[in-house]
């Protein structure tokens, strides 16, 4: 400043007056001037764009409302010159769009599922509602069970060997429990014999596939010799694992054991409930269709892909080479193939690999395919969020003595997921629309049923097809736009005072 000329001394004696803002800053008039006609060029563009919007808007309104046909019994009312949308067609077929070929006298079951779902979901989505934990438990455990039983009719065949298999899996988990309670090294040490037995059990089980002897079958009734052998050895391994936990004077050991017992009770409880006969008529999934199928596929995909995606994203950033390699291969394999291919593989090729007699439901296969496919995408979205969390956050959490899972679940994931809400919802929306692809494996989703019904000779007219697609598009749009708005709402809500 030394070169600047010295200014004369100045002292303000009176405050400058506070003036109202100029007219261009306030009111509707100000807004219009500031945003639409700031310059002549911008004004011309505004007028042209406005005229275009009015032209398009008028066209749509004219077609959908003013020239539309509103009532009638068949195609004759719609197949007239100059007619717009053919609404009586939509009205007469709407039930089919919602339920597909679900038996008419059983549709109340679908309605209950929709209603209970909405009644449980709405309070879950409202941050001010209490009891979020119970609400979430209901939505994630009870609701899927209720839906499964109501929609299919329940009364699943649960053979004795299914229970035996559940026992084997639980015993295998029990064998590994000391690892969870005592850490990897000490855990392996404490249950060495158990691991040996379980390993031998798995070998027996695998060998039974190769050797497969019918003599054994007759001796053991419906059980396969492999599973019986596996059950004996793995069961012994699991018992030893539980013994280790009970023997150790260790609080986390007791907690692990308690969780295992609860999980076991839930698994057998679920199997028994699914086996129960509620007197409902069986409705095969091939009879499901329309919005029902779209929602079942989309919601299962959404609910399964988020936790799976989080686990895969964490796996991909893991320091353990096996976990990391598995995650990378899984993600890249699924991302590398089109969803159509996945669905074809699931419905055509998968049965070739399964042992004879094991038959997965077609809808079930599509569900698994969609869920795994979208979890690979979700994993990459979540990984983006994880990368945005500074290293200092991990270090501060570790320095406080938090374990890996607590660092992740309490510190890193809440921040990472918040950052990628737009990406997550983007994936959900895209998944919701990709459900239309299940039609290529012969499932009747909303779009497919709209197409099919519009080809019905009773309603065929020049406007039927466009009306069908317009309505289907509107229904998809309502769901997707809802998700989009909700994500904006949550983003804004989580954003208060969080700036770093």
């Amino acid at each position, binding site marked *: 400043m030394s070169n600047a000329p010295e200014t004369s001394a100045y002292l303000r004696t009176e405050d400058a007056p506070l003036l109202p803002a100029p007219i261009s800053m306030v009111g509707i008039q100000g807004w219009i001037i500031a945003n639409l006609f700031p310059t002549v060029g911008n004004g011309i563009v505004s007028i042209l764009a406005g005229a275009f919007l009015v032209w398009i808007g008028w066209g749509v309104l004219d077609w959908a409302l003013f020239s539309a046909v509103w009532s009638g019994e068949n195609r004759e009312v719609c197949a007239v010159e100059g007619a717009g949308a053919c609404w009586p067609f939509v009205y007469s077929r709407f039930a089919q769009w919602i339920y597909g070929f679900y038996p008419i006298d059983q549709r109340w079951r679908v309605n209950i599922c929709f209603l209970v779902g909405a009644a449980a979901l709405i309070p879950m989505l409202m941050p001010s509602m209490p009891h979020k934990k119970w609400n979430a438990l209901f939505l994630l455990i009870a609701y899927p069970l209720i839906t499964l039983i109501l929609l299919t009719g329940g009364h699943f065949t649960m053979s004795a060997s299914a229970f035996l298999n559940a026992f084997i899996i639980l015993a295998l988990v029990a064998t590994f429990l000391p690892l969870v309670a005592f850490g990897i*090294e000490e855990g392996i040490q404490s249950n060495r014999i158990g691991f040996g037995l379980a390993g031998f059990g798995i070998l027996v089980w695998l060998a039974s596939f190769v050797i497969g002897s019918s003599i054994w079958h007759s001796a053991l009734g419906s059980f396969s010799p492999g599973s019986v052998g596996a059950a004996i050895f793995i069961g012994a391994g699991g018992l030893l694992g539980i013994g280790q936990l009970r023997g150790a004077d260790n609080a986390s050991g007791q907690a692990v054991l308690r969780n295992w017992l609860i999980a076991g009770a839930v698994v057998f409880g679920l199997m028994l409930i699914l086996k129960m006969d509620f007197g409902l008529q069986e409705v095969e999934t091939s009879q499901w269709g329309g919005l029902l199928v779209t929602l079942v596929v989309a919601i299962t995909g959404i609910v399964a892909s988020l936790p799976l995606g989080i686990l895969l994203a964490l796996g991909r950033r893991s320091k353990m080479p096996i976990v990391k390699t598995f995650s990378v291969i899984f993600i890249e394999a699924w991302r590398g193939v089109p969803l159509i291919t996945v669905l074809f593989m699931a419905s055509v090729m998968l049965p070739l690999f399964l042992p004879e007699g094991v038959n997965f439901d077609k809808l079930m296969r599509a569900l698994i395919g969609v869920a795994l496919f979208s979890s690979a995408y979700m994993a990459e979205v979540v990984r983006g969020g994880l990368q945005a969390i500074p290293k200092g956050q991990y270090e*501060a959490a570790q320095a*406080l*003595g938090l374990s890996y899972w607590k660092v992740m679940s309490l510190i890193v994931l809440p921040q990472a997921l918040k950052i990628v809400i737009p990406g997550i919802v983007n994936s959900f929306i895209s998944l919701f629309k990709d459900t239309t692809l299940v039609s290529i494996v012969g499932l009747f989703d909303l779009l497919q049923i709209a197409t099919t019904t519009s080809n019905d000779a009773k309603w065929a007219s020049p406007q039927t097809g466009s009306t069908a697609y317009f309505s289907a598009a509107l229904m998809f749009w309502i769901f997707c736009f809802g998700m989009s708005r909700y994500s904006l709402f949550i983003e804004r809500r989580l954003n208060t*005072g*969080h700036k770093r």
Partner: protein
Amino acid sequence: MAEAVKNVHVSDEIAIQIIAMNKWYGEFHVLRDINLTVYRGERIVICGPSGSGKSTLIRCINRLEEHQKGDILVDGIPLTNDLKKIDEVRREVGMVFQHFNLFPHLTVLENLTLAPIWVRKMPKKDAEAAAMKYLERVKIPEQAKKYPGQLSGGQQQRVAIARSLCMNPKIMLFDEPTSALDPEMIKEVLEVMVDLAQSGMTMLCVTHEMGFARQVANRVIFMDQGQIIEQNSPKEFFENPKSERTKLFLSQILH
């Protein structure tokens, strides 16, 4: 600066023992033959030019960095790959970072109670009562319900200190706690640290605040190129440095 911290008992009980410790980043030998014994109640200031390995050294003590050769014993617990031992050490050793590293999605109170609740399994009520006690000690109880982003740098660092204290650590590590602060905020953080030293906490502090070193430390360690070059009482260290490198360093930072 105020008068020196006095009458703080240094016991002959060993808090940290580092024996012939070496660490590499890939090919680069960052810490070379470190030998250091810290007794309970000691306040040690570590200084040295940037890149001398002083931060890395204290980060090895709670295993944020792992060493490749030699031994580190914290409270008698050897630091190896054993995760349980590492967790045991981390529960007893608090750490304060240059950039505070508060959890931005949690309120100040939640930042403080998180570890006591999830690591110490303390009931929420007790954890909150303890947290308020420590917030009072760092003189910002009125900020408990705010988010870290709403506080000034000095306040954030004091919250970070309180967060570590909530775990009742036996040892506190400070990694350049005032380097990211505006000058007028450095004082309020140093005051809290002096108070902590007065209470007999074992402290290892990487800092360039030489006034703080004179006032609080009972030992100053000078590091350069991954080695401990010189250690002495603050009086001797500042008035009578032995090595050329120390003299050069002191001449550069003390104007």
